[in-house]
């Protein structure tokens, strides 16, 4: 199937002198006969909020999993902070992963552990990154305070609501002070008010910690509020790229379909 990228006016193209921290080029990934990624490419610049939108099953989550080495692409180039993922050994990849926070769609809290243990878990392997701290309580408290849930320290995940779980998961991604945060559908399954709170939280975290963010979503409101730049993923390729306003004004029917209420 052929896809056609829409034209973006030159004056709105992203400023290329900024440092590229995620570089994906011509990535292909298929599952049997199902070609999920079909030459997908993107660049994430330092300090940027980039939203990738696509329909369910369009390969957004596959792309983000290839990015952190949870899945291997069939072909293509993926580098994070200048390091090509497929060339890294396990140890180097783990060190690199400590600079990448990953918020999973379903929060993915360890349900046999308390909130405190969930937050302490990533510190087990990466204490040296934070100066070999012996008492992890201040770090845990700081991360929980960032998401407004300091009182949940000793609760189990089952005692938390969906929105609280998402915020605790966000706190867990923050504990290692990542440079990049990957959000896999951060508002999915949440009511509009909680979604709004999560989006606000994402913005405040970026402001506080100066992180770059790659946000995978199909929530137009989330994209409108948080994105500086957007990529529409259709049939495994970047079909369209630009700011929210630019894409919203597009007359391309496939782009328009994303913004119809």
């Amino acid at each position, binding site marked *: 199937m052929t896809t056609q990228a829409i034209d973006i006016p030159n004056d709105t193209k992203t400023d290329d002198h900024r440092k590229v921290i995620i570089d994906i080029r011509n990535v292909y990934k298929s599952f049997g006969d199902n070609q999920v990624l079909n030459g997908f490419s993107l660049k994430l610049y330092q300090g940027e909020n980039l939203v990738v939108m696509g329909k369910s099953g369009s390969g957004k989550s596959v792309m983000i999993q290839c990015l952190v080495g949870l899945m291997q692409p069939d072909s293509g180039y993926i580098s994070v902070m200048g390091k090509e993922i497929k060339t890294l050994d396990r140890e180097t990849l783990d*060190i690199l992963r400590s600079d990448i926070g990953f918020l999973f769609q379903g929060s993915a809290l360890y349900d046999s552990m308390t909130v405190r243990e969930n937050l302490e878990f990533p510190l087990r392997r*990466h204490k040296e990154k934070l100066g070999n701290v012996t008492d992890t309580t201040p770090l845990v408290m700081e991360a929980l305070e960032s998401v407004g849930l300091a009182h949940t320290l000793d609760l189990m995940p089952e005692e938390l609501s969906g929105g609280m779980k998402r915020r605790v998961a966000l706190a867990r991604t923050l504990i290692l002070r990542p440079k990049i945060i990957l959000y896999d559908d951060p508002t999915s399954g949440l009511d509009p008010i909680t979604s709004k709170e999560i989006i606000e939280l994402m913005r405040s975290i970026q402001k506080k910690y100066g992180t770059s963010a790659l946000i995978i979503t199909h929530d137009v409101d989330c994209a409108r509020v948080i994105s500086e730049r957007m990529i529409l993923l259709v049939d495994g390729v970047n079909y369209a790229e630009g700011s929210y306003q630019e894409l919203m004004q597009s007359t391309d029917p496939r782009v328009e379909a994303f913004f119809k209420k």
Partner: protein
Amino acid sequence: MAQSTTLKNIADFFKEIGELSYFAGRFFKEIFKPPFEFKEFLRQCYQMGNRSLVLVLVTGFIIGLVVTLQSRPTMVQFGAVSWMPRMVGISIVRELGPVITALVCAGRIASGIGAEIGSMRVTEQIDAMEVSGTNPFKYLVVTRILATTFMLPILVILGDAVGLYGSALVEYFKGDVSFQLYFNKVFDSLEFGDLIPATIKTFFFGYVIGLVGCFKGYYCKKGTAGVGLAANTAVVFTSMLLFVVDFIAVFISDIFFEL
């Protein structure tokens, strides 16, 4: 059509055996590499021992009672009732104790591991561990396989002891045999060749229970149906494999100890 389905099933079976062998190989590769998850290993030992102890003790006790009650009339008929402690002792220590305890643990532990790890896979908790820089294979799989390998022999010994006690109880009430006499006869009849192979094979039973439970959970298909299937097939596959291991163990024991 039926022939192609049969061939596919055979191919799938051998594919699964191949994947299980690779999984087992990865366990031996990871076990010697630091960091060692000692705390998690101890937690798993406690969990598995604690969760299965009552079940193993009750089962062992009933087996001891039932074997003695069932065998007694025949032994009386042949005038060999004085051989009862020897017969029951050897049966329980060599075969019944290890196999029945392992089967009980296959139902209790292998299904539990399959469901637990399977649900962690489905809810992306394993992926979350991976991206946080912790090796989930080491943390979840190696610790559990080691825990089952070391806990099963302990459970078998306790199950055997309670089974023999159950048998002694029947003999006490039905045959007026004192506990001291009963256990003296049991220990007189047991030899090195009964105890050592029977104990060694329980390590392998434990290893199989942990290995299959973890394997089924770790490669669980997405969805809640996948978790159920992982738990179910873990029990079925473990039980089948336990008999294969038992046959091999008895065969080798026969060569070295002339059973």
